[in-house]
Structures are given as structure tokens and as C-alpha cells.
């Protein structure tokens, strides 16, 4: 049996794992990374990247369709567009492939040894990897668990046949005529919206009283409105019960308690993600848990010395950029630097139509933490750039302490606001006050002016409303 001895072993080459390995490599740490599937993890292969490719294609298609229906006030008319989804998917796969090899290239450049195969802990310092060429034993001083997460399966609606997860949804060769989405969270709505734009008849079944339950109603309203415009049926307070006997419909119980059958070619189940805690020998280690997740401290240490964990396995929010920041931090800790998790905010983006961005605390969260706050909201219908782009829905909202105007949180909903996330996060990390944002010149005409105006509004002297 072959044996590799190294300083750092990273299990899982998703965004957290590969960043950790690259950074460690840069710092001269002797590093090995193990990946069972493909470099880049969920994010790059079956998550963020492919879904954004599909969403973009759907947007373009819908835009042209809109023009073809002679509805566009821009004065553009075109013939009805046609879609070859197989080609779209091939294009998406091309992007994924480029990023895959990009990640591998970066790992090699950082002198990280890459082992392909499924890792299993033998003990806290040793893992076995089943590779194509046989069993590989790796012994390391420090191990980083970055095994990520996977879609939650409903017991009464197991994946297979017409029931698909986001992974399969991103590789469909044809657009399903009737698509039922179970779970009105961000993944379900992003994909549901994309398929609706591509021509599917989409119904969203959400068990709680509101789609996107993690956001406040004000933020969700423009999204709900757009779903309506796109002809997506949203059933809140409704519960999926299982497939109908014929297998071509989903049985649900509506908010009123009625049993209904929703005809469906595909049923996309997006009811959340769960940490991947099985199949790699967690039982051998008996690490402390925090609910379903591994318990970590502010240095991403688990309850076992020399074993760190990063990314989705460590808890909410399950976001690639959180995992990346953790990975970078752990690599630096392993290299002997003093680091602890001191981030003030982890921005989150929901790529619905329109997009939602949040950074820091919402008004409700801030109040719940005992802050006296002031809130400034600037609607995009008062923003020149938004008008010229035919997308005036949405707003920027800023939350600040009322005693010293320190910015606690920023939220926005609107077309293209995902790109404002960096400004929001930067303001919070830098400890900006409302005056800092208000006094920063924001380029005209852009949507970013909405950020400045929201700050002015909170200070009581917005200029454009």
C-alpha cells in the first residue's frame, strides 16, 4: 500500500477546499488535496456557475421573446426565437470545463498534490483514498474537512424518474412542458424562473406562507410580482405529498387543506441542502456536532486537534464565498499565521428576477439584536439608469444605528444588483457610517446611486425622492 505523508491534507476540492490548498501551497505548506468527483465542487460543477449560465441563457431568450411579441417599447421587433437547450447545456458544460481545468491548473501552480478518489478517515491523521490505481493512504499533520453539502431528498419524493434535483435540472436536454418546483427557496426560484423563461409552465409549491422565507416581505415583493408576470404559479402554504399513481403528477395539499394533483413532466425538488457527513468516516472521528453540521470554533477547528472543517459542512450560510474565506484563513493558520474569523458580514445573492442582495443585518434582525436603527430606502423607479434599462422594480435599503449612523446592513432587490454586493460588504467591513456612503461620489448614471441615495434618505435628506 502506498503512503503519502504531508503537512496539510484537504478533503474536498470545492471552493473552500481548493482555496485552502492553493493558499497553503503559496505559503510553502506541503499540501495534498483529495477530490472524489471534479475540482470545483458543487459550486463550479452543479451549482452556482452552471445555474448562472442557464439563467443568463434564459434571460436572453425571454428578452428576445418579449420583443418578438411586439411588446418591447424599445421599438425593436424580431422573429420568434428558437431554443436548442442541448446546445445551451453544451455551452454551459464548456464553461464548467474551462473552470475545472483552471482550478486544477491553479492547484498545480501552487505545488499542491491532487489525489482523485473518495477519501475515508482511518483516524484523525490518516485517510484512505480509493483511487483508480488502488488504495492510497495519506497521513497528515493537519486535516481540513471540506466535504460540502448535497440536496435534501424528500422521503416521499425520492430522486429518480421525473423527480429531479438541481443537478439534473442543470443538464436537461429539453425544456419540460410542465415543471413543478417543490420548495420556494432561492435555488427553486432561480431555476423555476429560468425554465419559465425558456418556455416551461412552472408551478412552485412552498410549504411556508412566503416564497424565499429567509428574506423579509418587502424584499421578496418585486420577485413575487415578476413571477406572476412570467406566468409562474406560486402555491404557498402547500405541501407536496408524493407522486400520483400514474407518475405524471404531484399530489399536494393546498393551504386550504384540499388535495390537488399538479400535472408535471418534471418535479424539481429544492427543499434545501444538508451537510455531507456520510461516506468519509466521520464516525471514526466522532467530532462534535452543531445540529447536522460539524461544530467549529472561530479558527475553524473541530473538537479534534489538528482537524479543521470549512464550508457547508460547518453550517449556514452554505455559500461558496464563506467557504473560500474559511479555507484561506485555515491555510494561513496552518502556515503559522495568527488568524481568527472576524468577518462582519457574508453577503448573499439570490439570482432570481430581479436579483436580491443582502449584507449584514436586515431591519428586523438589527432590532432583534437590540439596536435602535434608522432605515433608508431608495426605489429604483427614481433612478435614471434603471429607467433606461426597463427595470425599475426594486430598491436599495440601508440599516444603520441611530446613535452613530454605523451601517449595520444593506439590502437591495433589482435587476443587476448582485454587482452592488461588493460595495455593501465593503461598507460594513470598513465600519462605514451613513455619512461615509452619502459623501462618496457615486458615478452617474448607475444603479449604485441608489446606495448613496438610500444613505442620504436615512440621514433625512435624499435628493431624488
Amino acid at each position: 500500500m502506498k503512503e503519502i505523508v504531508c503537512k496539510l491534507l484537504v478533503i474536498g476540492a470545492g471552493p473552500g477546499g481548493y482555496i485552502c490548498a492553493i493558499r497553503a501551497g503559496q505559503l510553502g505548506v506541503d499540501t495534498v488535496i483529495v477530490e472524489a468527483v471534479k475540482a470545483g465542487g458543487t459550486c463550479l460543477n452543479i451549482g452556482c456557475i452552471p445555474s448562472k449560465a442557464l439563467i443568463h441563457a434564459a434571460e436572453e431568450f425571454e428578452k428576445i421573446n418579449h420583443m418578438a411579441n411586439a411588446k418591447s417599447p424599445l421599438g425593436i421587433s424580431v422573429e420568434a426565437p428558437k431554443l436548442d437547450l442541448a446546445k445551451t447545456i453544451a455551452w454551459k458544460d464548456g464553461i464548467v470545463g474551462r473552470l475545472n481545468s483552471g482550478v486544477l491548473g491553479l492547484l498545480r501552480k501552487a505545488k499542491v498534490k491532487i489525489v482523485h478518489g473518495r477519501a475515508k478517515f482511518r483516524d484523525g491523521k490518516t485517510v484512505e483514498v480509493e483511487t483508480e490505481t488502488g488504495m492510497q493512504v495519506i497521513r497528515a499533520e493537519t486535516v481540513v474537512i471540506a466535504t460540502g453539502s448535497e440536496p435534501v431528498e424528500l422521503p416521499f419524493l425520492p430522486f429518480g424518474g421525473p423527480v429531479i434535483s438541481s443537478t439534473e435540472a442543470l443538464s436537461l436536454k429539453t425544456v419540460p412542458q410542465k415543471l413543478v418546483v417543490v420548495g420556494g427557496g432561492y435555488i427553486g426560484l432561480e431555476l423555476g424562473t429560468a425554465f419559465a423563461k425558456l418556455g416551461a409552465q412552472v408551478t412552485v409549491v412552498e410549504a411556508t406562507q412566503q416564497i424565499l422565507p429567509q428574506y423579509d416581505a418587502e424584499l421578496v415583493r418585486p420577485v413575487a410580482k415578476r413571477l406572476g408576470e412570467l406566468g409562474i404559479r406560486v402555491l404557498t402554504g402547500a405541501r407536496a405529498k408524493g407522486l400520483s399513481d400514474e407518475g405524471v403528477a404531484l399530489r399536494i395539499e393546498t393551504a386550504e387543506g384540499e388535495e390537488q394533483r399538479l400535472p408535471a413532466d418534471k418535479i424539481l425538488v429544492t427543499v434545501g441542502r444538508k451537510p455531507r457527513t456520510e461516506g468519509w468516516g466521520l464516525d471514526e472521528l466522532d467530532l462534535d456536532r452543531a445540529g447536522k453540521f460539524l461544530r467549529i470554533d472561530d479558527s475553524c477547528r473541530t473538537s479534534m486537534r489538528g482537524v479543521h472543517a470549512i464550508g457547508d459542512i460547518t453550517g449556514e450560510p452554505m455559500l461558496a464565498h464563506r467557504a473560500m474565506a474559511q479555507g484561506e484563513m485555515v491555510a494561513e493558520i496552518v502556515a503559522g499565521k495568527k488568524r481568527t474569523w472576524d468577518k462582519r458580514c457574508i453577503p448573499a445573492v439570490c439570482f432570481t428576477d430581479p436579483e436580491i442582495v443582502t449584507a449584514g443585518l436586515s431591519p428586523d434582525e438589527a432590532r432583534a439584536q437590540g439596536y435602535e436603527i434608522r432605515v433608508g430606502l431608495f426605489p429604483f423607479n427614481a433612478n435614471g439608469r434603471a429607467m433606461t434599462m426597463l427595470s425599475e422594480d426594486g430598491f436599495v435599503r440601508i440599516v444603520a444605528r441611530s446613535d452613530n449612523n454605523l451601517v449595520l446592513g444593506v439590502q437591495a432587490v433589482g435587476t443587476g444588483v448582485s454587482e452592488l454586493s461588493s460595495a455593501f460588504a465593503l461598507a460594513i467591513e470598513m465600519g462605514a457610517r451613513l455619512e461615509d456612503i452619502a459623501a462618496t461620489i457615486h458615478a452617474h448614471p448607475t444603479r449604485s446611486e441608489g446606495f448613496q441615495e438610500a444613505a442620504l434618505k436615512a440621514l433625512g435628506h435624499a435628493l431624488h425622492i
Partner: protein
Amino acid sequence: MGEFVIKMPDVGEGVAEAELVEWHCKVGDPVREDMVLAAVMTDKATVEIPSPVTGTVLWLGAEIGDTVAVKAPLVRIQVAGEGGEADAVPMAETVTIEQPFEKLASPPPAETKKTIQSAPVAKAPAEAHVDKPLASPAVRLRAQEGGIDLRQVTGTGPAGRITHDDLDQFLARGAQPSIMPVGLAKKTTVEEIKVTGLRRRISEKMVLATSRIPHITYVEEIDVTDLEDLRATMNASRKPDQTKLTILPFLMRAMVKTIDEQPGVNATFDDDTGIISRHGAVHIGIATQTPAGLTVPVVRHAEARGIWDCAAEVVRLAEAARTGSALREELSGSTITITSLGAMGGIATTPIINHPEVAIIGVNKIMTRPVWDGSQFIPRKMMNLSSSFDHRVVDGWDAATFVQRIKALLETPALIFIES
């Protein structure tokens, strides 16, 4: 798969239990043969427990600070059984580690000064903004790398933001906590320290000694001018690599001489049985400060050692005690003890007897003092001896006689070297 149970070894000297002072492994850790699993302490000596097998730790039988009886299970280790052998071995095979005696002579058993660190306490990362010092990421990074707690730094920026300048100023002040302009700040922190290991031993011994022994402490001043002259002369010819004399060897020899005449102070008193053992041998304990706390290495048979030999032995033992490499025998069995704080010796002390001994001699600082010689004040090097005796078995008169005799010898040091 089999399971090994490692029991608390019999560490000798009729010791029935030992205190667990350090774990070097925890549940789930892989261990290899000969890897040190734990350290236990008996009689001020620390003994390491190595693993006899390779495997994974399943169970630990005690917490740091616990007293574990000899033969009680200490660690369970899961081991991979070899082929058919695993079946032949009962599931709970019992292996008792016999600590080989010669192993005691091997270098430092345990780093006594190492702080015992428990496994990292995992806690969820705090997400609330409340109470986090306000600073940009770059400032936070600088602070982390410089080991600065930003809560100690006063922010002068908007909303109390800590700027790079604030950090510079903080560092320029020597990273002392900023003095709040409003005045002195109250501190309300309480640090709890578990008394374990050597500290607990010391604590127990001190309680035993003070609760059982009615001390009488007798302080007398000694003119050591001549002794210091002699010492200087004797040291003058020593090469740099040779041991030089301190006051201690002279005192030890003086004690040996005095004990000849007054064997009652070189004794141990077993107050449970009511028996005083007067010892022919003069084993002098030398109270020594080590990084971990007070230990008492013993110069054995001082009566059979010349002055240079005594000096060399004191130096050797002090070093061994400080590095933690002193043997168990070297840390026990004294019949009388000397305590000296050297330059810190003060004017007088009230030494606590090293139970079950009956006397302890405390050396105070040498100071040049004006002494009236009958017609004038002259500068003399004076040193006090503060000595405590077990008043149950040593009367004040005897104690005073003992100290006066030592005083006579030290003031006329030639007497120390004259055969009686």
C-alpha cells in the same frame, strides 16, 4: 479488532495512587507504540505512560487532576487484530505497564512547565455585531498578527472606528491597555485556575505541615564576614567551569557537625504512630523554586560529603529539579531541610517544616550592617537564619541551642573543618 486496557502502573515505593497531570492523547487519537499517552505524578516525580500498542484511543479513564489508584484502568485503546491472533485474544485484554526502573533515569519525564491545554473548545463563530471592535479588515489583520486585542484599543475614527493611526499609537505605547480618558477602569474578570499536579502536591503538603505541626520559629543573626572572606578565597582559585561555593555548603557542613551533638533535630516524627525516628544519615532537602513550583531535591548523606562535594551536589540537583529531570529518589527522603531565597532572602522568614521532618533552616539575605564592637560601629556582613522546629518534639531551648551552635560555626568557619 481488539481492545487494550492500560492500567495505572505501579510506580513503586508502595505508592497506591498517582495523580494524572497531563494527557498527551484524547479519544479518537491514533497512537503508536511507545508514544507517550499521559503523565502521572507521584511524590513530586512525574512519570510518563507510554503506549504498548498501536491503535486508536477509545476511552480515557481520568481527568487532569484526578487521583487514580494503581491498577485502575487509565486508557482503552482499540487495536487492529492480526489475522487469527485477534480471535485468540479476548476482547478486553488487560495489559499492565510495568514502568521499567531504569526508565526513570532517562531524561525529562515531562515538561513540567508546559501549560496543560485541553482540546480546543469548539464554539460557533459569533455573528452578532455587538461588542465587536469597529475596524477595517486591514486594521484587524494587523492586530491579529501583532497579537493585539482590538478591544483594548481606543478608536478615534467615526463611530469609534479603530484606525491604523490608533493602532500605531497603541503599539508606540508598548501595547499597554489604553488609559481611558475618563479615569481608571474597573476590572471584573475572574480567572479560575484548577489546582493540579505539583501545585496540588505543594498545597496538600503545606496544609499537612501547618495543621499538624505547631511551629516555633527562631531568628538569629550571624556575622558572616569571616565566612564570606573564606568563601571568596576558596572560590578565587576555581576555574570558570568548576563549581563555586555559596553559603549553602558551609551551612550544610555546620548542620552536620551540630547534628552530631544534637541528633534530635535530624529526625522524622510519625505523628500517627507517635514514633520519632532519629536518622544517622543527614539527608538535607534543599527547597528549590522551579518553573512549575516548589520542589525539594535532597542531598543525600551530607555527613559523608566534603564541602566541595556538597556544593556540586546542590548545583546538580537544583538544575535537575528545574529541568524536571530529577529522579523520584532525589526528590524524597530528606531528614532536614534548608530553604533559601538567595538575594530575595529578606530579613526574616517563617519557614514551614517539610513534614514529617522536625526542623527547617531558612537562610536570609546577607547585608552589611553597622555593628557595635564595644568602642565603635564597624561594617560587618550580617545574615539572619530563620529556623522553624516542630515544637511537639523540639523544645525552644533545644532549638535555640541548635541555632546558636550553627551560628558559632559559621562565625568562626575554621571550626567547621576541625575534626572534633
